[in-house]
Every structure is written in structure tokens, then in C-alpha cells.
């Protein structure tokens, strides 16, 4: 079973999470009115064999949206690094102990 290291809750089964799509692409700003950047963002995806940056939401836990680097062939997950709203949490001791605040 794929297990995901949640920076807030610790290592948890993926069944607590919901996959939220490709996080490697930069989302156009909401005021962007051109079709092309939105078309590329919504419809065009790479399907890499290797490390893939993706969104997962810890729905049955802290409900945070995480960005995770997952190897698509081995399911090995590297520690999460980017979480704009919770940068303080990410760098605190919580990440090391895996305990909930």
C-alpha cells in the first residue's frame, strides 16, 4: 500500500488521501482570459516514468493539500517541501516527530 508522509500527521495510508492532480505545472492566474494557457493546464499532461510532483489532500486527516514528489514506478515518496500556507509547520519539529500539534 502506498503510504504518504504527511508533514502534519505522520506516515499514513494513501486511503486517507485523495489524489489531486499534477502539481508540476504552474496554474494560470484566475484573471487569465486566453484559452491557450488554460487549455494546456487543464488538458495536457505528461505521464512520466519517474519522479512526479503531484497534489494529494489529506482528506481523512488534517485536510491539508500537500505537494508530493512520488516516483511513479516505485511509489517512493520524497519528503514534501512546498506548502505555501503552512511553511512554518513544514520546518518545525512536527515534521520530524510526525505528531499532530
Amino acid at each position: 500500500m502506498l503510504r504518504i508522509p504527511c508533514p502534519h500527521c505522520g506516515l499514513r495510508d494513501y486511503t486517507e488521501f485523495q489524489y489531486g492532480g499534477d502539481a508540476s505545472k504552474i496554474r494560470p492566474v484566475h484573471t487569465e482570459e486566453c484559452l491557450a494557457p488554460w487549455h494546456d493546464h487543464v488538458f495536457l499532461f505528461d505521464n512520466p516514468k519517474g519522479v512526479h510532483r503531484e497534489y494529494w489532500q489529506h482528506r481523512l486527516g488534517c485536510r491539508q493539500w500537500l505537494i508530493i514528489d512520488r516516483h511513479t514506478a516505485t511509489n517512493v515518496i520524497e519528503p514534501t517541501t512546498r506548502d505555501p500556507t503552512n511553511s512554518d509547520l513544514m520546518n518545525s519539529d512536527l515534521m520530524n516527530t510526525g505528531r499532530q500539534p
Partner: protein
Amino acid sequence: MNAHTRRPQGGHMDRSQVLHFSLEGKPLVGFKGDTLASALLANGIRLIGRSFKYHRPRGFLAAGVEEPNGLFTLGSGGRTTPNVVGTTVALYDGLIAHRQNAWPSVEWDWMAINSLLAPLLSAGFYYKTFMGPCKGSWMFYEPFIRRAAGLGRARHIKDPDRYDTRHAHTDVAVIGAGPAGLAAALQAGRRGARVTLIEQDSLLGGCLLSESSPALTEWRQQVMAELASLPRVKILTHTTALGLYDGHTLALVERRDASAADPTRGQAREVVITLRTRALILATGAIERPLVFGNNDLPGVMLHSAVHTYSERFALNLGSRILCATNNNSVYASACALAQHGAEVIIADSRPHIDQALMESARAVQIRVLTDAQLISAQGRRHVRAATLAVAGQSRPTTLPCDLLTLSGGWNPTVHLSSHTGIAPVYRAAVDAFVPGRYASGHYGAGAIHGCYALPEVIREGATAGQDAAMQAGYPQPVDVIAIPAVSTVPYAFELPRTAYPRTRQKAFVDFQTDVTTQDLTIAHEEGFVSVEHLKRYTTLGMGTDQGKTSNVNGIQHMAALRDVPIPSAGTTTFRPPYTPVSIGALAGRRVGQHFRPIRRSPLHDWHATHGGVFTEAGPWLRVWYYQWAGSSVESAYLEEMRVVRQGVGLSDVSSLGKIDIQGPDAAEFLNRVYVNGFAKLPIGKARYGVMLNDDGTVLDDGTTARFSDTQYFMTTTTAQAVEVMSRLEFLTQQVWPELAVNVTSLSDQWAGLCIAGPKARAVLQNAFPTLDSSDAAIPYMGAREASLGEVPLRLLRLSFSGELAYELYVPSEYGQALWEHLLVAGAHLGIQPYGLEALASLRIEKGHVAGLELDHRNTLDDLGLGKMASRDKAYIGRALSQRPGLKAMDRWSLVGLRLTTTGSPLRGGAVLFAKDEPLTGHGRGYITSVTWSTELNQYIALALYQGGLRHEGEEIVCAYPLKNEYTRATIVSPVFIDPSGARLHV
């Protein structure tokens, strides 16, 4: 000497505990510690089934999980379990067993006539024979074929037993409790790690259980005693590791003694365990490979290791004249043991040269050794009587009488679990076997799994793996290394025979369970099958319940020989979980019946249940379908409930709606970006209907959002999309617009929602809240108020789903029932009644409100007639892609209303729509989404999506429902059937 004698001493059974069981009703006895197989053999029963296709008589080939022939149906009634491998069943008192796949009995099986039809039944015979003479022939033949070729049958009676699910965690999981696994578990345990030792057998020891050497017996006892003394070591016997998954997760099934598990006391018969571990050790051992020759499926032809196990572990003498056929060193020690128990033993070794020490050890116990001797065929009708061999230096084959023929064609390491992780096994020529290609990080292997067979070395490897795994799991402190027993071993050596398989006219079986012979493989080869994966599917090699544990490698070797390529080039098949068959009941656990999935209940559920509410499933929710005050069936009740709402006042439970609190200085800006219509200028104390889009421009959800202060909004969503909308808002606040100062909080479970609807709704409200000014001026249409019921906060929204004057009231969940009862009392003199989901949905169809059935994530705002809502002067999610030309096309399927114009058949949801005079073929021009009988219009009405939408208003179209052969006509009308001006809302 009697052929089936249980020796008076020896073995690992408890002879003081006599167990009674039955085979086809015949009473038999065995001992505690027997398997069903050993107990049957002890009772002289050697014919245990008929083969899959040819119905040939079969006996046990093996003594463990690899057994291909010995499948039984156990139990009776609802407890019947088919296809149970007899060699893995620990005997228990009262066990009821039946043999399978024979009629009228295994001894006299009419279907044995299939043997005469053998030419028809070779590889691919289904595909070639049963395709003609016309299309659909297969449908005709299939039931007959299924009856003739088959395994046991499941019953259609409910299983009374309980099955359970468990989650477990450990530091080091050790799979297999043979010498390697015992050493590994002990070494890791000594380091202080939490160890889980998993053994499918009822006893620990693996191959040690078949050893009579005092040194090994003592070693096993000592290790077991020390393991038992370590509190952090957990031993699971009768537990099979079914699969190995990502994240160091193992799926285990623990099979409890069927006689001990008592469902009436809540005890489970089987438990599926999800075990998460930090490190794991694969000590899964190896399975002996049979030899392939003519009639090699006769009862009395068995794996050599199995005969050894039956002899030493179960004290059974299975033959008095034993011929041991081999190509390797592993049989000699055990053959000597068989001779010492009194049998006359001949070893037929296919190698021309044999280690001198082995030769002498055999001669010392009067064993005759034939070198360069290859088996051609076995003879006998129901049991082996003799074997024919080609012996070097002799011009003609030799026939030797025997009553037991044992086979050792080398060993197949049990690489299944390591393969589950996606690591393909590789062929290791030095041991003529497929071994794990490598071990994943945190995984370790020890012993026979990678072709290490010498006992001291196996134990040493196990101990090392135990150290390494404990280290990996965070237990670095060194400890004493366990003692290695002093046993002498001869190194493993083998030689493949010069010809892979002897030419013989008799059937030579590669796969015993699915009746695949060398001839089938040859046919497949001649027809051009090259890939092992294709070969497997064409011939059914390895497709039985044993998953080819004894047949795969022989099949691959045969294929390699036919193609004249080395074995690695022939490839190997992919192993997938489960390692051994597992019952569906165990996988389902307690998730049966009502517990199939979690159910969401309204906080008012109990009131509904005790007041005539009849429930229906709406997604995960259990909602009231209708109330029995209105009728005894939904067809009559919902119409009565609709009338109450249209003419008086009704009360309904809308607690399942999504409820989201949105707060913060940027809450207005946030909603403005989320909804297509503007929310920034929504006045405090007002609510507004809003629609949000997906990124791709299609409609995601609709709902109403009210503003209670500058910085606080209260959003409602549809029941169906509540979870997705909440998740979406969290994504936007956390990841997309972290700069917005806004927080979203779900109140869906925390608040109950009630709706009072009908012309008399205000009168109820006035009576219920005398101090609240509920006049039209104070609470106008789309007005929102905060109020209180005693101490309890209350939110009141004047909006309408039904098209009547209506109010939605929200209170904390625990006060939902108090408010509900309060409103019923306040409205009693006005005839207030509760109404259910069916009426609620029908009222909204009359009003033309879209709901989940219309919102299919493919429609645009224009498709739903909501295009005018979209703001032109602000940005919102989905705006850019909603402008795509394809989404602006004129002939899109758009929302329309339908009125039935013919009598007879009703309109039906899902009916396909066609223009009046076109042929009724293809996908049509749309379909009906929702249907109801309209109490106002006294006819069937429907909402539908139709190509071109209301541009066809007034046209008559055809609604086709071919499944029921119904073709009705309807007229396209506006989807708003009642009160198009909205006069009823503004009173």
C-alpha cells in the same frame, strides 16, 4: 509390510487427541497435528480426486501449499467451502470433507470418458472446437463445458461465519518459519525489535519438521523457546502472507481453527491483517519440482520431499517398494531415512556421475542406485505399480515394480512475494532456479528463496538478515549471534538431463491441476506461441488455483527446449497476489450487508424512523423517501406530500446539503472568484443563488450563499457535491490563493437543515417564533436572518427549491430534532406534515430547478439555461475555457421540459429522445434526466437534455425506452412548469 501404515511412534502429531472426521459421510479418525491429507493417507485413502479435463484418477502429489490435485469441499450448508487444498488443512474434530469433480463418485467417474476424447481437449480446444457452426455457438456450449470441466461449487446459502479485518504494525516482519525464518526472527528479536513471524503452517520449523536429526530437533526447540520468551516477538501460525505491497505493507490471512471459531460468540473464522512494517525478511523457502514423464499423474507418484514429510512429520509409511527419481543431491539423505523405516528403496538418478559419499551413504542402507537412468513412464491403473526407465548402457527400457514413485526435479524458490513488488525473478543457472532479481530497500531474503539449501548456511543467512532488518528498523545494538547446529551436509548439485523430456506415448503432465501436458505445449509451440505469458493463457498452464507452483518452471523449461533457447530467454510469468487462494468472505470481512460501506444519517434520523419515514439511499446518505402518513407506497405517498406543500405547508429534512462557513476579510473576493455571478456586493442579510464551474468551464455545482456580516458568508451546496466543493475550496485557499485572508470550514455535520415550504409557511414561522418579525418586508425573498430558539443560534434563509413560499432553517445538529418538533407543533393547526425526498425532487422538477441528475459535469451554463447568470465584468474559475467554441455551439444538448402527449406508457428517466420523424437508431438527440407526475398539471412531465434545447420549443418528439419496448411522444416546453413569473415566491 502394509502400504499405508502409520508407525506406532514418531511424528509431530499429538496421539492423545483422536479427532473424528468424515469423507463423503464415511467416518474416519486422525490425530491432532494431522493435516486432512495426512489423515486420509493414514486411513489408506490415496485416490483423492479426478483431474480437471480428463477426469483421470489423482492422488496427493505434495504435502504443502503447492498441492495441485488434492482439492476438497469442506463443511456443509452455508459453511461449505469449495476448492480447499487438503494438504494445508489442519485436521479438526467434526471436519466434513468431500472430493470434487466426479460423478457419481471419485472411484467410478462417468466423466472419465473425457480421456477418450482427449484429442479434442488439447491446447486451445475451446477456441477451435466450440466456435462453430454459427455466431453465438459458444453461448450454447459453455454451460456443458463448465459442468464437465470444473472445480468445486460454491453454495448460494448465506455463510453464518464471521470474518474480520485487522490492522497491525511491526518493526520486522519475517515471512516463513523454516530454519532461515526462525534464525532471522530470533536475531531481530534479540536486538529488541518488534518482530512478527508469519507461518502458514500450524507448526514452526518448515523443513525442520521433517528432520529426525537430534541436533536439528534440539536447535528448533531452543529457538522456539527463546522466541516465546521475547515479549516483543509475535508469532502468527496458520497465517499466510498473501501479498506484498508498496510501503512495506503485507496482506496476511489468519485462518482460525474452523471448529474453534464460534460466530455466535463473535469469533472470526478468518482474519485479513494489513501489516505495516519497517523491514521484512523473506524466508519463504522453496518448492520441489516434479519430473515430467508418461503417466506422471498416477496416484502414488509424489514429490520426494512430500513423501519425506509424510514419513517423518506424520509417521506414515506410504510405500514398501519406493523408486526415487531425481536429478540432484537433495534426495539421498531422505531416501536413506525411508530405507531405515523398512522400505525397499531404489534411487534412479539421471546423472551419470554422483558424489561418492552420497553413493556410499545410500549403499550403507541397502539402497540400489541407478545412474544415468531417466524415467520414461509409470504404469498402473488407479495406483502406480511399476516404472519404466531408460538406463544408460541398456539397449531396452527397464521396468521396475514399485508402489511409490517419488520425484525430485530440483527446487523452485518461492519468489512470489518479491515479485509482487514488481521485481522480476531471474534465472540462476548455478542452482537451476528462478530467484528474486533483487530485494527492494528494506527487504531481505534468506535461505532457499535465493537457492541456498545447505542448512548451516541457511541458518547463518537467516541470522544475518535478522541483524540487518533490525538495524534498518532502528535497532542497531549488536547482540550474540545464534548457535549454528552441527550437521553435516552435502553441497547441492544437480544436472539437467540431456533430453528435457522423454518421448512417450502416454500423457506427460506439466500442470496437474489444469491438465496441461507436454503435447499441449508442443501444439502451442507449433502454432507459433513464443511468449510465456501467451502460452500460459492459451494452454491454461499455471492458471489453476495453485497458480502453477509445481508447473510454471517445468513449462518454461519445456518451452525453452522447444524453441532451442536458454531458459532465461524463455522468460517467466508474473506472480500476483494472492499467494494462495483466499476466501471472498475473508476479504469482505465485516463489510457485508448494511456494513458494505459507511452510511451517513441525518441528525433527525431517529425521529424519521419512529414516525413512519421510509428510507432510501442517496449516495452515502440514508434519506427519507416518503412518510407513511401519506400512503403505503411511494407511488401514492409522494403525490399526497406534494399536494400538502402546494396547498398548505410541509416540513422536510435537508440536513444532507453541504454547509460551509466562509470567513475573513477577503471572503467576498474569494466567493467572487469561485462563483460565476457576483457576490462582493451581496448585502448583509441577503442570500444569492450561485453556480460554480470546473476549470474546464463545465458546471460543478450550484447552491445558495448568504451573507451574515462583512466578513462572514454561509454557503450551501448540493448533497451530491458537498464533499467535492469543500475540498475544492480548500485547494483554492491553501494552494492557489494563499494570499487571500479567508478560511473555509465545513459545517455539514455540525448543523441540521430544515425546510418549511408551502403557502402557509410564514404562518408556521410566526407561530413558532412570535418575537421574530417574519413579514415579507422583514424577511423578503432571498432574505437571510440570524435568530435563536431559546439559547440556540439559528440561521434562517428565505429561499425555495419547490417554487412555493419557503424557508430553510439551520441549527446545530443536536437541536435539529427539537426545532423539527417545535415547527410541527407550531404548524399543527395549519395541517403541517413532513415530506420526503421523492416529493422534494418532484416539486423541483415542476419548478424546473436543476439537480444532480442534470448536473453531469458535461453541461455548460447555457446548456442549463443559466447563461445569463455569468458576470461579464469579473474573473471567475472556468471562465476562460467556458468560451471554447465547442461549448458555445448552438446544437448542444440543453435543458428542456417535456410534457407527455400520448396516453399509455409513462415517461421514463433515461429514455432516448428522437425527432418526430427520424429513424430510432443511434444515440438520439438527448435523454430524459428526471420524471414525475405533476399534481398541478395532472400529467407526466420531465426534464431532459435535448439537442438544440428550447429552440425546438413546441415540437413533438419521440421518447424511446427500448428495454421495455416503450415509445411515447412528448412536447418540448419550458422547464419551468409552474409559476413562471415567480409570483408565489414574492408574497
